[in-house]
């Protein structure tokens, strides 16, 4: 409880203490980085484990009554729109312990963004609506940017543009049924399904030249020499001075280096649990991962033992913990690298790769139902481990 209080303000101040992206590179303790974005799509084999939803969109309201849902919909939709839903092929269906609404694709398409946002906020409370509970995220200013020029046909891009809605600085998308329904063939449907698994990551090169303060840069990326392998690699590539570049990948500790830009396999869960953000962050400095760290209940006790609340300036290796205020528990963790970049695995799914992302985008991912509290922890020095 004490630590909760000490972190309370961080939710609101996080972005103010993170150095702005436009900060002069020469002054940045992390040096001259050149991140380049890549898009990772889940392997087809992994996607095949996930059944695709039907073409017919359905909104599920567990533990509800139809009158209650109708009343809810009337707070957002016009009476005509609610009537339209009632009079559609299936109508508003009352099942045992659940109400289902079957909007048509054309109905969803004509809904305004604001109406959609309000309804989807409600649907996101229920795991029964998997793509509302955890939408597909498009971390880009536009749908076109996210999918590039040739990945999807123009008609699909147009539909996505209509149906995507903003969460923070990202676009979210929940109408997977509607999207798959416009595919023209099984092959195209599989291709669309794969396209929706897109995540982005970064390839980052670090450039040094005659003017670089190598000692300061080494201290940053090796955490004052505590990262032994990073120290060796940094010295190997900078010992002779001059202008050179090397990939940040090689500076990462063993576990993140191994998993960076890859997807978990079924083998990853052979021990009984799959890696998630907690597993990734708490094992960040380990050589042999502790599978227990996938369990959120392990997180706070471990942090209290090995980490301390961090103060700015935040630095490489700091653990960023997301807490749900309503559930009063951690919901995600990632590791700060530099600038606003973090190493993260967003969730336990095998469709979620280990990536380097902008922190605000990671926050968006965990803001579907509520804005998380963000806390920053730093690993204790060896003498206090």
């Amino acid at each position, binding site marked *: 409880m004490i630590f909760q209080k000490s972190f309370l303000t961080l939710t609101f101040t996080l972005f103010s203490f993170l150095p702005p992206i436009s900060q002069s590179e020469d002054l940045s303790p992390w040096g001259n980085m050149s991140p380049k974005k890549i898009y*990772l799509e889940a392997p087809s084999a992994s996607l095949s484990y996930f059944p695709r939803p039907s073409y017919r969109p359905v909104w599920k309201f567990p533990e509800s009554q139809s009158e209650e849902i109708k009343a809810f919909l009337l707070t957002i939709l016009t009476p005509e729109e609610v009537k339209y839903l009632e009079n559609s092929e299936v109508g508003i269906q009352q099942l045992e312990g659940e109400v289902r609404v079957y909007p048509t694709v054309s109905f969803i398409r004509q809904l305004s963004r604001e109406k959609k946002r309000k309804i989807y906020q409600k649907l996101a409370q229920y795991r029964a609506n998997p793509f509302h509970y955890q939408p597909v995220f498009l971390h880009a200013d536009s749908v076109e940017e996210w999918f590039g020029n040739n990945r999807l046909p123009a008609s699909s891009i147009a539909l996505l543009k209509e149906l995507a809605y903003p969460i923070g600085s990202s676009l979210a998308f929940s109408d997977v049924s509607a999207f798959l329904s416009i595919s023209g063939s099984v092959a195209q449907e599989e291709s669309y399904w794969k396209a929706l698994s897109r995540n982005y990551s970064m390839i980052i090169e670090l450039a040094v030249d005659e003017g670089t303060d190598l000692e300061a840069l080494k201290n940053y990326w090796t955490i004052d020499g505590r990262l032994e392998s990073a120290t*060796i690699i940094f010295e190997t590539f900078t010992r002779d*001075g001059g202008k050179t570049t090397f*990939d940040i990948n*090689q500076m990462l500790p063993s576990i993140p280096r191994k998993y960076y830009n890859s*997807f978990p396999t079924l083998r990853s869960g052979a021990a009984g649990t799959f890696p998630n953000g907690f597993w990734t962050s708490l094992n960040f400095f380990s050589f042999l991962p502790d599978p227990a760290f996938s369990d959120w209940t392990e997180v706070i006790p471990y942090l209290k033992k090995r980490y301390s609340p961090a103060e700015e300036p935040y630095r490489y290796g700091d653990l960023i913990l997301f807490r749900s205020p309503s559930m009063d528990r951690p919901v995600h963790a990632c590791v700060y690298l530099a600038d606003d970049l973090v190493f993260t695995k967003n969730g336990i799914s095998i469709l979620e*790769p280990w990536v380097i992302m902008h922190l605000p985008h990671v926050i968006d991912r965990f803001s579907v139902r509520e804005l998380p509290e963000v806390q920053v922890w730093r690993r204790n020095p060896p003498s206090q481990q």
Partner: protein
Amino acid sequence: MRSSLQKFPLILLSLILFGEIDLVLAQNANGSGESRVVVPGQNRDATKTFSGPWGTISFREAIIEAPEWAISDGRWLANWQEGTVWRFQGNIPQFRQVLETARFSLSEIGVLTNPPTLRNFGTHLEIYPPENILLNIPRQSRGYLYSKLKTKGERDLYEVPIQLAPGGVSRISNSKTSISPDIVDLITQLTYTRRTGILYISDLHYIAGKAKSDEERLRIAQFISREPTGTATLSLDIPQEERSNLLSYWSARGKNTTAETILSSSLENPEITSLDLSHILPSLPKRLLNTYANQHSSIGIRHPNCYATALSFFEDELSPQLVETLQPDISNRYSPASRPWQFGDLVVILSSSGQWLHTCNYIAGEILFTKNGKNPERPWVIQTMDDVFASYLREDSVTVAFFRLRE
């Protein structure tokens, strides 16, 4: 079985050393097979480019140095004050014979075979060579003499010398060092070769005595641990029609899913014109590249060796069963491979008697992924074929065989 393997003898007929430059005369063995001249003492080009089914890969050399914690072969660091002691398992006439064959002068032989320089323990001789003699032994003579020094007791640096990286001091000192130029010169002076041209150093007790501090002695240990590695970058500036070939090569028939994921995505971004090899390697070598074995990757004092490394190339973790294997049985998992060699192929260097001297993995072009030796001060690196082969040219001729993991 062996005759069906793709192999090429590394032939070395004669080796004459002139300073750091080696002259090697070689010819094709029996006029059959494929031969390659390997020159252990030769310095290499720092940058190379290889094109082929893998695309175009550029290799830029860097010199990696063991960290303090990885220096395990530092017995001399603990007892350097004992000074230089040669131990000879034999009598004085036999030792005299060795010195004569090594072309020591009569006066030098006189000094080295009489007290106080020599002490006869009955079971063996101990010789405490004067500085002027120690420093002025010609390289060939030093190599011959030191090959004759051994006792029944603990194996010392004369019996098990420290092997320097191919190219020797002139190569490893291309990269800055904090040890003094005088010490570097001394190491150069005391470097010697045996028959096949591999470069060794044994006189570390003497060199340590010339260092100014324990700190410098440690730096010397790190300096002689240096070996070449590098960065390799794959060009992604390729025509659309060649992309599937590139993906096919690096994904190794589905065994390297990492490559498939990262290459497909990187090829989408026109800003990414090249990709560091460390992104493309399977998860295990990706994790190990340019690192040293630590207590976590070792089993007690058993450290990962070349077999555990090479045979685990496509695996998730190093196989602990292979860590101490002297000659693993690969017959169930691998088949002899022929050209064109493929990503991840197992490369085995064999002695003339068929004993495995080393294994590593083929990457592309002339680049191999290797851990040269099981000592923790030997890192996992990428090196050129010439460098790896030169390190294991322990006989006049050794052979190299390629194997491929079965589907």
